[in-house]
């Protein structure tokens, strides 16, 4: 017994002593294939694992290795894995878990203020960030909190926004070289959106980018009548980073109020856009607006995907997204130049995209008093869950939502800390909606294969070097497809709706796949 205790102590010491994650590790994830060190595993937003033990030939033998039960329902976390320890988060909480057994090692919880209300979203958390000796968590009451990686003890907490006027956070922070970057929720509450960077050691704010422009910014003119002051522009999904260009790419959400555009005439920059920000200063390098003057709540809040490819004989650094508005876009990520777009889901609001990337809006697609039927619905053709890019198959994978809604316009009234919507939507019946996993040519958006789902999904996609694609369904199926053909190879009924992003990591050299399903985290292996 004494010997066993000594072994455990030594093992624990080794695990904690190694629990340091320098920036160089995160920036070079392929040197650490068994770990998952940032939200999308790499800064490019690929959600691709180089692990290849699990293949089309053996995926049918996947078994549950362990499960972890969360204290709260509806979990959307994408775990972080460092040195055989998995870090999961919930609303204002975090837990470290032994990856061999699923046993918790420490837990941290921050009380949710009694007067806190989620305005337009569920009380969830989508994951943590890690850098050096700290774990970073964004909280519902809008604090960025740094925990000691070894003990879960709080090291600092910095207020990002005032939850009493509608600011909140559900996203995983993005840790880069010396800084931790976050965005905020609040697009249904008329906040002024922002992207913030904080010093990773001290928690002191390094810079702030306002997604709703100040008066001296020419973009302010895209808001008629001073409507920018309640303009929204939330930044509620984790962005990506190009370490060579030192640019952060972040999606910006809807203008407020959501469905009544008459009170905010103009393009409403920088809502429904990607912004490229200098990682040192937060200064805007370029922006691209997917849905000018949005009136359907089509946030550009998807994880951007970075890759390099040759287009028309020229090597380009690219950024791509399957946007919530139903179109897939490819841009030059150095300049923001529009290169290509095409529809990847059923949509009725635009006749197409013009040569500059601006939508050609169809008639009768605006919300009205009587209601207007439009595809897709407010949750869009894709939403916060992650796409995936496999450098091995050179395909862009996305979970697609084909569903419509009747959009209504109402008179909006702004009152700080309450919903500021200007209308609403009636979603179409379940049986007239469907979902798909689609594999697209990343440079054009051309369809390579599709796999139909029973209902529009809420789960992200993971691709692996075993040439597999993993994802989940609302009805609890967690499944694997052939990454080159879309053929279904394996599925498992988890017993709860899946609204989370899968990851892959290794335990003692053996590949594992993890997914949160409602109250349970499943870990599979051969």
């Amino acid at each position, binding site marked *: 017994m004494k010997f066993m205790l000594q072994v455990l102590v030594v093992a624990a010491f080794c695990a904690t002593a190694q629990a340091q994650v320098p920036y160089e590790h995160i920036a070079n994830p392929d040197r650490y294939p068994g770990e998952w060190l940032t939200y999308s595993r790499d800064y490019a937003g690929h959600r691709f694992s180089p692990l290849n033990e699990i293949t089309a030939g053996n995926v049918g033998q996947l078994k549950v290795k362990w499960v972890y039960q969360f204290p709260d329902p509806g979990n959307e976390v994408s775990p972080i894995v460092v040195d055989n320890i998995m870090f999961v988060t919930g609303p204002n909480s975090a837990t470290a878990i032994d990856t061999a057994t699923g046993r918790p090692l420490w837990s941290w919880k921050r009380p949710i203020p009694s007067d806190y*209300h*989620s*305005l*337009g*979203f*569920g009380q969830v958390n989508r994951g943590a960030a890690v850098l050096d000796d700290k774990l970073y968590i964004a909280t519902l009451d809008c604090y960025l909190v740094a925990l000691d990686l070894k003990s879960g003890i709080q090291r600092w907490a910095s207020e990002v926004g005032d939850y009493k006027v509608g600011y909140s956070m559900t996203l995983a922070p993005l840790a880069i070289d010396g800084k931790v970057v976050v965005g905020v929720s609040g697009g249904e509450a008329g906040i002024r959106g922002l992207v913030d960077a904080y010093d990773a050691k001290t928690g002191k704010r390094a810079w702030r980018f306002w997604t709703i422009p100040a008066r001296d910014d020419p973009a302010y003119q895209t808001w008629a009548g001073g409507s920018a002051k309640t303009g929204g522009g939330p930044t509620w999904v984790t962005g990506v980073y190009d370490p060579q260009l030192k640019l952060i790419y972040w999606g910006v959400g809807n203008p407020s109020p959501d469905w009544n555009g008459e009170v905010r005439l103009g393009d409403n920059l920088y809502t429904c856009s990607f912004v490229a920000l200098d990682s040192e200063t937060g200064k805007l390098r370029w922006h691209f607006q997917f849905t000018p003057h949005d009136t359907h709540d089509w946030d550009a809040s998807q994880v951007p995907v970075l890759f390099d490819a040759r287009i028309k004989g020229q090597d380009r650094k690219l950024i791509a997204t399957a946007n919530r508005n139903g179109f897939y876009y490819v841009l030059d990520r150095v300049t923001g130049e529009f290169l290509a777009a095409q529809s990847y889901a059923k949509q009725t609001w635009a006749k197409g995209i013009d040569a500059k990337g601006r939508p050609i809006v169809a008639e009768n697609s605006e919300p009205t008093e009587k209601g207007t039927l439009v595809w897709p619905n407010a949750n869009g053709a894709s939403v916060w869950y992650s796409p995936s890019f496999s450098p091995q198959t050179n395909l862009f994978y996305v979970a697609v939502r084909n569903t419509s809604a009747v959009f209504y316009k109402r008179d909006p009234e702004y009152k700080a800390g*309450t*919903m500021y*919507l200007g209308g*609403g*939507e*009636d979603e179409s*019946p*379940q*049986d007239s909606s469907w979902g798909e996993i689609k594999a697209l040519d990343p440079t054009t958006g051309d369809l390579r294969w599709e796999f*139909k*789902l*029973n209902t529009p999904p809420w789960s992200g996609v993971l691709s692996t070097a075993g040439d597999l694609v993993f994802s989940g*369904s609302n*009805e*609890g*199926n967690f*499944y694997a497809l052939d990454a080159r053909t879309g053929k*279904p190879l394996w*599925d498992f*009924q988890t017993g709860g709706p899946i609204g989370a992003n899968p990851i892959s990591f290794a335990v003692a050299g053996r590949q594992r796949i993890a997914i949160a399903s409602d109250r349970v985290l499943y870990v599979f292996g051969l």
Partner: protein
Amino acid sequence: MPAGYFYSEQDVADIAAYVHSLGSIPPEKLPGDPGRGAIVYSKSGCAGCHIIDGKGVGFGPELTEVGKRRSASYLQKTLASPVSTLPDDFVFVKAVSNSGQSLEGIRVNEDTFSIQIKDDFGKFHSLRKTELKELQKRKDLSPMPSFTELLTTEQMQDLVAYLASLRGPQ
């Protein structure tokens, strides 16, 4: 209607209580006789698909409290044209396996990879979609016939009165 993320737990409980109160139909004065209606129910084979107080086969909706949930006019309409009052999520399914076996019934659940069906004996079947060569889903078909031609006007009134009188376990 926008999603109600902003409601407190107390708000949700209050709204649920209010909506629940709306679902209770007050007793109506009807022309038919519930006693005779019970005989019509029995002789017309209704218990072959419905359950009242634990008696019958569970293919169709349970009717023990149907009088609290449905008005007489709704019941009359359903008996005359069952298709006209099908719930939004109702689907009548015909499945044919790869080996040629055929099965008809009501969909009770479905996901991307499987479908669960209840047949006319009330028996549940779970089928893998990859093992089916045909899967027809009909939202415009009810296994219940129209009783307009099968019953007299008086019998129909009696049957409606009987169903409307079902307000909980006897």
